[in-house]
Each structure stands twice: as structure tokens, then as C-alpha cells.
């Protein structure tokens, strides 16, 4: 079960405010804090409840807050106001090409990511052969990952990230991993993972995918829920507007 109660999220205006700015602000040299800044409200008063067994698609234009919503659900972003309750073991899949130890080998990165994802050393060792086989990286796994191509990074991260079995799975967009053949393989592996999960939230721009995989869809617009209902209805309403 995933429940969001009147969740809002405002990104702080600056990434990290510098000391100079704080001092000049304090001395009155810089515009006061309430001057219009670049603070972005990404989510406004979101209330969503997703039950066990549901498959939910999140749709909307770029910048509507879809990925932000996923990050709030899995706890990467704490909401500015409101409450997030997740029942069960949660995992999210996105931005697969970041988070590596560049000087370390593919094997070592496999272990590191597995641990970060919550697996124990033993569990990872048990799966290493399977993961390695799936990546098709072969001898390249011995090399430092700084020598890898973008596609190789994604394959490695994807293979490890899909080796776990969370109850609640949050998926962002189609994960483009490697060539066509690999994508096919990746899709099958992802489907297996989805089958194991008891709750799926999927962010996608493909209405076809959403209709295929989900019975329910939520349309986000400008940080608000614009429509929440049966996948067929929501996606066709969305398509009518965008065409």
C-alpha cells in the first residue's frame, strides 16, 4: 500500500546558498528572502492511495512532476508538507547511468550496488553469476568501469537493480538499455520483476504501455492530479488534449 496525503513539494530556490549571499542578505544588501526567486513547486496537494495488487500508470507532460512523485514515494525526496506512508519493501528504478565507483571493476560495482539496494553479501554472491550473464559484459567486468560506454553502464546497473524483488516497484519510463536485442531481453527481465511485485507504479509517455500494463492511471498536470481513474479513460482523455 502506498498512501500520499496532501503532499506538496517545493524545491529550495538555490542548490546550496553561499555564505556570501547569506551575509549580504543579512546586511540588507541583497533582495530580501521574499523577493520572487526561482523556487519551484513541483507537487501541490497530492492525495493518492494505491492498494496492494494495483498497477498504476502516471502520465503527463514533461515537467508535470511525474518523476518527482516517484522520488517522494520511495523516500528520496521528503515532502515539504503532507505525509507519505508505504507498506512493504519499496524499490525504484530510474537514472540508471549514475552512481558508480569509477576506478573499481564491474564486479566490485555489482557488489556495491547490490548492497546499496539492500541485499546482503551472500545474496549478491548467489546472484552474481546470473547478473553477470545478463549484462553480457563478459571479461569487461574485470575492468574499471571508467572504461565503459554509456550502454555498458546502463546494462550493469539494470542487471543489478532488477535482481531484487520488492513488494512495491516504482518504474520511471522505458529504460533504454543497449541495442534492440538487449532491450528485448531487458523488457522480459523487467516484466518478470513486475510480476513479482505486488504493487507497481509506472511513469511513462507511452499510452500504449500504460494501457497494456496498468488498470489505473493518474494524470499529473503542473504538479497536481488532473485525473485519476481507469487507464483507458485517463489515457484517452490525455491523448485528446495532446493531439
Amino acid at each position, binding site marked *: 500500500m502506498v498512501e500520499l496525503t496532501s503532499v506538496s513539494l517545493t524545491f529550495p530556490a538555490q542548490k546550496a546558498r553561499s555564505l556570501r549571499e547569506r551575509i549580504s542578505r543579512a546586511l540588507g544588501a541583497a533582495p530580501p528572502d521574499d523577493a520572487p526567486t526561482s523556487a519551484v513547486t513541483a507537487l501541490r496537494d497530492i492525495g493518492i492511495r494505491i492498494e496492494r495488487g494495483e498497477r498504476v500508470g502516471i502520465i503527463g507532460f514533461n515537467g508535470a512532476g511525474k518523476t518527482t512523485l516517484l522520488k517522494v514515494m*520511495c523516500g528520496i525526496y521528503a515532502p515539504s508538507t503532507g505525509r507519505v506512508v508505504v507498506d512493504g519493501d519499496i524499490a525504484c528504478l530510474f537514472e540508471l547511468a549514475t*552512481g558508480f565507483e569509477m576506478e573499481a571493476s564491474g564486479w566490485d560495482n555489482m557488489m556495491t550496488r547490490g548492497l546499496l539496494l539492500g541485499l546482503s553479501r551472500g545474496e549478491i554472491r548467489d546472484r552474481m553469476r546470473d547478473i553477470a550473464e545478463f549484462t553480457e559484459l563478459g571479461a569487461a567486468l574485470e575492468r574499471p568501469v571508467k572504461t565503459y560506454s554509456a550502454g555498458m553502464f546502463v546494462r550493469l546497473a539494470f542487471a543489478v537493480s532488477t535482481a531484487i524483488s520488492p513488494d512495491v516497484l516504482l518504474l520511471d519510463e522505458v529504460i533504454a538499455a543497449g541495442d534492440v536485442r538487449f532491450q528485448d531481453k531487458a523488457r522480459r527481465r523487467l516484466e518478470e520483476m513486475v510480476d513479482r511485485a505486488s504493487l507497481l507504479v509506472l511513469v511513462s509517455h507511452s499510452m500504449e504501455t500504460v494501457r497494456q500494463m496498468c488498470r489505473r492511471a493518474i494524470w499529473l498536470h503542473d504538479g497536481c492530479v488532473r485525473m485519476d481513474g481507469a487507464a483507458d479513460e485517463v489515457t484517452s482523455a490525455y491523448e485528446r488534449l495532446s493531439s
Partner: protein
Amino acid sequence: MSEAAPTIAPTVTPRPAGGRPPGSSQRRFGSRQAHLHTFSIAWQLARLDVLRRYTATMLGLVWAVLSPLLMSAVIGIVFSNLFGMPLREFLPYVFLNLTLWAFFAACVDSGAIAFLAAEGYIKQIAKVSFYTYPLRMVLAAFFTLLLGLIAVAVVVVLLGGRVSAMWLLAVPGLLSWLAFGFAVCTLSAVLNTALRDFQYLQTVGVQALFYATPIMFPTLLLVQHDLGWLLTWNPIYHLMMLIRVPILYNDVPELSHYVASALSLSFFMSCAVFAMRIARPRLVFWL
């Protein structure tokens, strides 16, 4: 517009017991198992850091020991003449001090980048304790410290020092030093991520502390110049004495050092925990 404080952090309620599918990674936050897992991630990252550091250079591990030893030799020769102290006594003293100091400096410096270096993990994988990242830095620095201490022991023995059971008394001192390093590293990590300018202030502060602490000069020098208060209020001095006295003088450190160490350790630990509590919901936005 000020940052609105989150009213309630996301809560994760544990699933009912018994229904754990294979590979499920549910570890209750704050449980013993969760702490062990945090340690195991930090250990893995630290291991990679150490390997990278020492396989990149030709002499590898040797540098970790050689550079403070060379430094101690230079300082030892100059200052033992300056203070009229026999080199035989002064060299182990400086070498031990510098080795211990190097750990502290490493904790402060690597703390500054602890979260920045982990940005890729923090922004993409939830549920990992933020303490993992300073802990990783501290463990790597501690490894170097242990190597250095072995070299110190060799130097002490070569220069006619005595090895006795008293040396075991240095172990609690060493553990305190490790805990202190962790607290300092965590504070440095939070402050430097929240406020990028802090680094400059920190560099000056650490340097000042280096000269205010008896590392390159005998402790007595401060007392003779009516600067004894510099010692009283210096947590690093007291913590160092817990290790220095058993190893160099085969003696029991004074109780006052233990008390002062315990007090400053709890103070810095509380500060670190407090800073982390403030940072936890905001950290990802600071990166």
C-alpha cells in the same frame, strides 16, 4: 521564500513477519540489522577507496607510512635541536603525533566530500542511511592510521622503547579516536554540503588547531608560556594523550584525560547526530 520544514517524514511500516520473499531487502530502520547493513555498505566502499588509493601509485601502501615518517624525521631533527631534546625521545613522539593527526585531518577533509561523492547513490537509491557515507571515509582513514601505528611501534622499539602490556591501554584510546573522527567527519559532511563556503573556514581552523596542539613541540612548552588553557580546552590533546601515554611512556593516562575525552566525545557525537537530523530531509536538495 523560506524552505518549508517537512511536517512528517515518510514513514515505512514493516511488512508482517514471516512473509519475506527471497531477496526482499526490508530492514527496519534503526534495527541492529539495519546498522550492520550500513556498516557493510560503508566497509565495501571504504575497501574500494583504499584499493584505489594504494594501487594507483608505484610504492602503494608504503607511502602511507613513509610520508609521515619522512616528515617526522625532518621535524624531529630540527625541533629536537631547537628544544634541546634527545632525538631518540623526540622522534617517536613526533611520529606518533603526526600519524594520529593525519587521521583527524583526513576525517575533516574527506568528510567535506562524503555526500558530494555519493550524489549518484543518494539521488537514486532510497533507504540507505546517510551515515554510510561519512563512515566510509572514516574507515578508509582508519586503515591508514593502523598502518601508521605499526610503523610507529617499529620506530619506538628500534629507538630503545619498551613494549609492555601497558600498550593495551591504548586500545580504548584508539577506539575513542575513531569515534571522534566519525563525529567530526559527519559534521564536516553536513556543514560542507549545506554551505559550500565552509571549506575555507575549515581549512584555516584545522591549521590553527594543528599549531595549538602539542604535535611538533613538547606539551611542556605551552605550560611554560602560560598557555595551559589551550591544552585544557583542546579535545584533541586529551584524546591523543589516551594513546600517547601508554605507547610512549608505558604508563596509565591521567583520569582527567579520560573524563575530558568522554565529555568532548559525547558533545561532538551529539552535534553530529543533531546535524544529521536537520540534514536528513534536506540533504538531497543541497547536492
